[in-house]
């Protein structure tokens, strides 16, 4: 029961940290662009403001449009709760292995896209079409990347994968490196960052995620935004904790957890800097360059599997 309690606490931690990561990325980006930028807790203020505001909806919207923010938020949150953040002693990770996580993210995306198509504007449909297009190519790459980890660790349970990594001496595996590279590309595409999507644009030719939530306001928009921030943290946690798990607590003890928390914050901060730098350096791609980008991810993931089969397992 204690483990479940801790899982609840950890999932709340996800909720609390998600806006902070976005704020940090914005701050670093602003610094890189020689601006002072908003304080890093600005996303919290935005969320607070949006929750307090009145929600407005097009009269052509159906009930699904109202329900979608809640479903998107809850599904993303549940997916996040199954990824080890501080400790691998996590019953939610056994409840939802990595395929279920992909499924829950798919559920969120399904409703997000449907909500985009509900209002009678071309924007929503366009965003939904592009989102499904990008995800159709990203999902196989993501699953393949995770599969090469799962085949090494003989488990699809993320907590077990992380524990397998921590077992024994650290060693180099080409499949891990390929999977890492593939997962980074997928994460960029799935969380809608540059060069696939630009979270701060409102130009109809370029936006994907923003186009779908264009009609939302007030608390609905707050939930959608929060879910997007949560998704960024989810992928960040997946990357740092699966590929660089050192420091994560293997049981729930205060000293280990404290250590894990400090290391986690450091790792996430570094990842945030990397993201900000790459977003500053790169320009957004044309939509039809995205398949090449995601094909590269799929190629990397498949090469990861191949090198697992050929180089690591051998005869």
């Amino acid at each position, binding site marked *: 029961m204690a483990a479940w309690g801790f899982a609840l606490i950890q999932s709340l931690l996800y909720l609390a940290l998600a806006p902070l990561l976005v704020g940090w990325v914005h701050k670093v980006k602003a610094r890189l662009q020689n601006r002072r930028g908003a304080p890093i807790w600005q996303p919290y203020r935005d969320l607070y403001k949006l929750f307090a505001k009145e929600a*407005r909806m097009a009269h052509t919207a159906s009930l*699904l449009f109202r329900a979608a923010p809640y479903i998107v938020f809850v599904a993303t949150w549940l997916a996040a709760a199954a990824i080890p953040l501080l400790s691998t002693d996590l019953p939610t990770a056994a409840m939802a292995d990595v395929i279920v996580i992909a*499924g829950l993210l798919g559920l969120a995306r399904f409703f997000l896209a449907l909500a*985009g*198509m509900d209002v009678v504007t071309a924007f929503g449909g366009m965003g*939904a079409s592009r989102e499904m297009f990008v995800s159709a190519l990203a999902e*196989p790459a993501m699953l393949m990347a995770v599969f090469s980890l*799962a085949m090494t660790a003989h488990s699809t349970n993320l907590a077990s994968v992380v524990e397998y990594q921590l077992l024994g001496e650290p060693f180099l595996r080409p499949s891990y490196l390929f999977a890492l590279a593939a997962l980074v590309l997928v994460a960029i595409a799935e969380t809608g960052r540059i060069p696939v999507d630009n979270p701060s644009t409102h130009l109809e030719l370029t936006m994907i995620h923003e186009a779908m939530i264009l009609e939302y306001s007030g*608390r609905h928009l707050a939930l959608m935004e929060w879910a997007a921030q949560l998704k960024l943290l989810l992928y960040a946690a997946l990357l740092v904790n699966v590929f660089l798990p050192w420091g994560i607590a293997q049981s729930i003890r205060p000293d280990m957890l404290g250590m894990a928390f400090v290391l986690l914050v450091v790792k996430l901060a570094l990842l945030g800097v990397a993201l900000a730098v790459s977003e500053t350096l790169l320009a957004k791609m044309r939509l039809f360059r995205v398949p090449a980008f995601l094909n590269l991810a799929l190629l990397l993931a498949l090469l990861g599997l*191949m090198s697992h089969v050929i180089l690591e397992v051998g005869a």
Partner: protein
Amino acid sequence: MSITLALQLAEGAIGLALLSALVSFFPATIRRRVAMPLFTLSGLVALAAGLVTLINGGVATAQLPLGLPWLPWQVRLDVLSGFFLSIIGVVSFAVGIYAPGYVRGFEGGKDSLRVLGGFTGLFLAGMMLVVLADDAFMFMVAWELMSLSSYFLVAWHHDSAANRRAAFLYLLMAHIGGLSILLGFGVLASFGGGFTFEAMRGASLSFGWASVAFVLAFIGFGMKAGLVPLHAWLPEAHPVAPSHISALMSGVMLKVAVYGFIRFVFDLIGTVHWQWGVAVLIVGSLSAIIGVLLALMQNDLKRLLAYSSVENLGIIFIGLGLALLFLAEGHPLIATLAFVAALYHCINHALFKGLLFLGAGAILHSANERDLEKMGGLLRRMPWTGFFFLVGSISIAALPPFNGFVSEWLSFQAALQAWQLEGGVLRSIVPIVASLLALTGALVAATFVKVYGVAFLGQARCRAVRRARRVPLSMRTGQGILAFLCLLLGILPTFFIDLINAVPREILGQGLSQVSAHGWLWLTPISQQTASYGAPLVAMILFVALVLGLWLVGRGARRVRLGDAWDCGYAPPTPSMQYTGTAFVQPIRRIFGLLFQISDGVETQQDGRRRYYLQVVDRAWGLLYAPIARWVEWSSRQVVRLQSGSIRTYLGWTLATLLLLLWLVV
């Protein structure tokens, strides 16, 4: 309750189906009151028979007073038959409840309702007889009964030439397939020394002959199941039948083909080889990916659903291919896992495809529209159908916590055990198949976002749809039953897998012992360390969090203010400005363009208006069917030369044939 009782129940179900066929030819008042309830009851009894068999296990046989003098018809009910009998039963039950309301729409039309009811009953009886048959002779008779009666159902709206053409194509393909199956049985029978399945099981075949039998069976059953490249008839034939029949054909008849394949390969041939597994895997993945891409391109709702059946059968055959592969390589436990995944997907596909076809029928019933590009906003007009269709869409898109996800999860788990295989090439093929499966899943989600978004959300794009009315309660109930089962199989997989487990235990000699070893909350197919899925917990947490969220965030009198959609300061948006289905899939069409024959452009019509046209054609027509058709025409032209008109020439041919035959015989 014992297995013999189950067999009696099954025979009763067949009797009820035949009775319902008979009653359909009675006067209209009796027909309306009795025929469909009998059909429903037949489904229910079949379901009961199947469940009893699955729970009790065992085998029951009987002889029917029919057939040839030296080969009376043998019926046999075992767990495999029971499993498929329950699939037939459950969908027929829902369809039986749905049908009266739907068929009422045809009252007073040109097409005879007697014929419809009669062949529907025969069709159901044929399917049940196929799964009960215990000798090749009865199997083929039942198979033909199923094929022929469904041909008449496809050809029921025979006014339109396109429908007649589709029905003819269906008949043709069904017979080529039937011939192939017959030859396959012939190989087994000649080695086993008899037409009963019992004799065939005892046959010992060399690898070569076993492969011949396997290929014949794979072609025959694969054609019925609509596997690529033999799928082209399916999207022509299934949509033109009345929708409740489409539900039966796509949901159930395709499963009967799967039953035939399992019975033939896993049960009758017995020893399997890895090459077969690879062949089935490749054909299955091609069907999955090509099926879903073609489904995505369709704008006719029922055609889209039919193409999606091709895709789902592909997924089922991926599972069966994995099972063959692992079985041949000596990993029975993983083979069992893949086999269970395939069986689970069989039920799932029967449920959600049945549900979706019934939903399409409801739209057809109330708005008389099949073209997605004219729909829109139906969720407001038909909230219940809209809700059930949403459940079906989420299920088919393999998203948790619904049933489609469970079978996809099991298939992935089986594929992930590929590291246990010996051969390195096999070990690298299986993950690639898994990646194709993942791609398929993502594309299915895109397909059903398109379908649901265009049909049920937004605003109506034509008058008839704007005035669509609710469908009668019976139709909603039929959909509701299937939707509820979709959810039930999604959140309680351990119960159902425990039930299904009897099938691999009998066919493969082993069940999944670990599935519910950690309680009903945890689905652990191999071991808890390898993978687990707490489906009830996921569903419960989703539900609780949703309720909590709604209460916390949206509580009290915080109403939503309604206004116009954002119009960028220009003209207010109109329904015709919505994204269409064609526009939705444009990016995907562009990058997978190689797989289709696409012709598009802008043409100027006679009235001077310019119009964009787009045609996406299945490449199978150009690559496979057209050459064969040309060859058949060419060879028939050659044969026509014999027809000189002179009776003496004909007699001369007869004499020559007779002499040749006598020479051969002696």
